[in-house]
């Protein structure tokens, strides 16, 4: 655990930054901080999604069911709010729990499936769960039309004392804190899995399950643990998003795009790391928003091009690229041009060895 200390320090620093960010943004950007906070919440939501998918991928389970667990959490929150008087905050862990239990069920039957077969089975599960939710009596789950979900935070209202945007700011800041908290939790889970003995088990199971078993690792246990933890995070995220967005609807809440973002982001940022999914979420959110503001129509085409290019040219994602650059630099004379070094020393760059 001693090696985990620097990570914990970083996580703590992040928590402090999250706590201070809204006030700083308000001071710096005034009215614009309202939408910046909302964008930051989107980015943190993407980071949680990506971290949880990466956690599962570390055991070699390439899941296409993240939309299902996200949707399960979201619908749990919606149905709880409709049928019971459970406090909305409590719906978050309950959403996570429901998703975790579903993952335990799905994970148990997909234990023997690998690669593409596992992926197809989880994709099928996603579609089936969506169909099942549509078939639940309308009085409970709203059928194809979905349900409204009450917001987690009531509007702050101090008559006369505040401008309209300040009320929106407070609302967005509240959500920002909750997303920040969930992100810190996801980072902690990911870091602990990375710094404890779980890493040895997860990596061994991913690389060669039979050999891992012969060396005493219980593959079923490792895979189910990763599945349950990953889904609990995503389920909590789904519940939170339902409360922020105000509604759930089968086609939107179970949309395949959730699954796509869950896997694209860590691949873009750097698989099997904690930093990669976070970096990926930050950069992709910024790229998407910039493109959307620049080309209102068809910005997704540009987004797609960025993704394809990055997978072609950075096979190990942003983290892999950073590692490669750091190694290539060696002890760099300050200000030396990276491109010149690359051209003059292609061998060292290719083999990836430190000089």
């Amino acid at each position, binding site marked *: 655990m001693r090696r985990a200390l620097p990570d914990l320090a970083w996580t703590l620093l992040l928590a402090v930054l999250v706590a201070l960010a809204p006030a700083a943004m308000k001071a710096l950007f005034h009215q614009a901080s309202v939408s910046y906070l909302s964008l930051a919440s989107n980015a943190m939501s993407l980071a949680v999604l990506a971290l949880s998918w990466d956690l599962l991928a570390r055991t070699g389970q390439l899941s296409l069911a993240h939309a299902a667990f996200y949707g399960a959490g979201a619908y749990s929150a919606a149905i709880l709010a409709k049928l019971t008087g459970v406090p909305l905050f409590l719906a978050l862990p309950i959403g996570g729990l429901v998703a975790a239990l579903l993952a335990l069920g799905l994970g148990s039957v997909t234990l023997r499936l690998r690669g593409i077969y596992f992926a197809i089975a989880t994709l099928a599960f996603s579609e089936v769960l969506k169909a099942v939710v549509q078939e639940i009596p309308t009085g409970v789950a709203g059928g194809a039309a979905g349900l409204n979900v009450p917001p987690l935070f009531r509007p702050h209202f101090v008559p006369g004392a505040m401008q309209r945007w300040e009320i929106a700011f407070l609302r967005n800041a509240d959500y920002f804190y909750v997303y920040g908290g969930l992100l810190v939790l996801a980072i902690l889970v990911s870091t602990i899995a990375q710094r404890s*003995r779980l890493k*040895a088990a997860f990596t*061994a199971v991913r690389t060669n399950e039979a050999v891992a*078993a*012969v*060396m005493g*690792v219980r593959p079923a246990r490792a895979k189910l643990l990763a599945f349950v933890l990953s889904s609990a995070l995503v389920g909590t995220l789904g519940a939170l998003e339902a409360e922020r967005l105000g509604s759930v609807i089968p086609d939107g809440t179970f949309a395949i795009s959730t699954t796509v973002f869950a896997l694209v982001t860590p691949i873009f940022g750097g698989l099997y790391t904690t930093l990669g999914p976070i970096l990926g979420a930050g950069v992709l959110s910024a790229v998407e928003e910039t493109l959307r503001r620049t080309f209102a129509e068809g910005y997704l085409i540009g987004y797609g091009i960025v993704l394809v290019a990055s997978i072609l040219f950075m096979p190990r994602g942003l983290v892999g690229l950073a590692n490669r650059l750091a190694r290539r630099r060696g002890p760099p004379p300050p200000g030396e041009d990276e491109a010149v070094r690359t051209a003059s020393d292609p061998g060292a760059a290719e083999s990836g060895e430190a000089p």
Partner: protein
Amino acid sequence: MLRVDALGKRFGGLAAVRDLSFEVAEGEIFAIIGPNGAGKTTTLNMISGLLEPTSGRIRLGARDITHLSSAERCHAGLGRAFQVVQPFPEMTVEENVMVGALYGTPGTREREARQRAEDALERCGLAPLRSVAAEELTLLQEKRLEIARALATGPVVLLLDEVMAGLRPAEAREAVSLVRDVRDRGVTVVFIEHVMPVVRDLADRVLVMDYGRPLITGSYREVTSDPQVIRAYLGAEDEGADQDPGAEA
């Protein structure tokens, strides 16, 4: 220590192993030899739980392990090094060994595991290579890593599948003394081998298999002078012909 009773394995119509029984005593070095396709690796796979036997029983000490999972057998004290070396390529040498050290014996604390990994690295001469990525090792180093990983699980019985194959004579001699050292520390060793001088130098007893059946069990001298064995090696038209006893330098 390890006892196999009437073990059998069928793949469809093919009986890969038939009615195989043998018992290995504690502290013994036991060799399994035979032409290619004789069922040696199939036998080890059944013992380490990678293949389900069609019939028969396997006992480790007093315990029937026939239906245990690979991981449970490892926890019960069975270590295994593979013929086709299978390191975890993304991990360093030390991380590879740590997998076995951490998970080989339930309830191992991290500090103990580090100790055990360190010990296994030292014994296999891998300590200087601890931070090297496993995919960068030479064949000899990979074979040592196979043994180190198996040792780190804290085995009572160690199964070695052709760990000498592909080694130069000097390297093979090194490996032989490593296996002896392992036995001298109280580990029972069962190994499959094609290199006959290694069998001669190491084995207390030798089991010869042919077409999935046991031909004979005895000392090296006994089995290599047995007419059945000579026929199995020299008479058959398979690749085993070039492996005949005594021909190996």
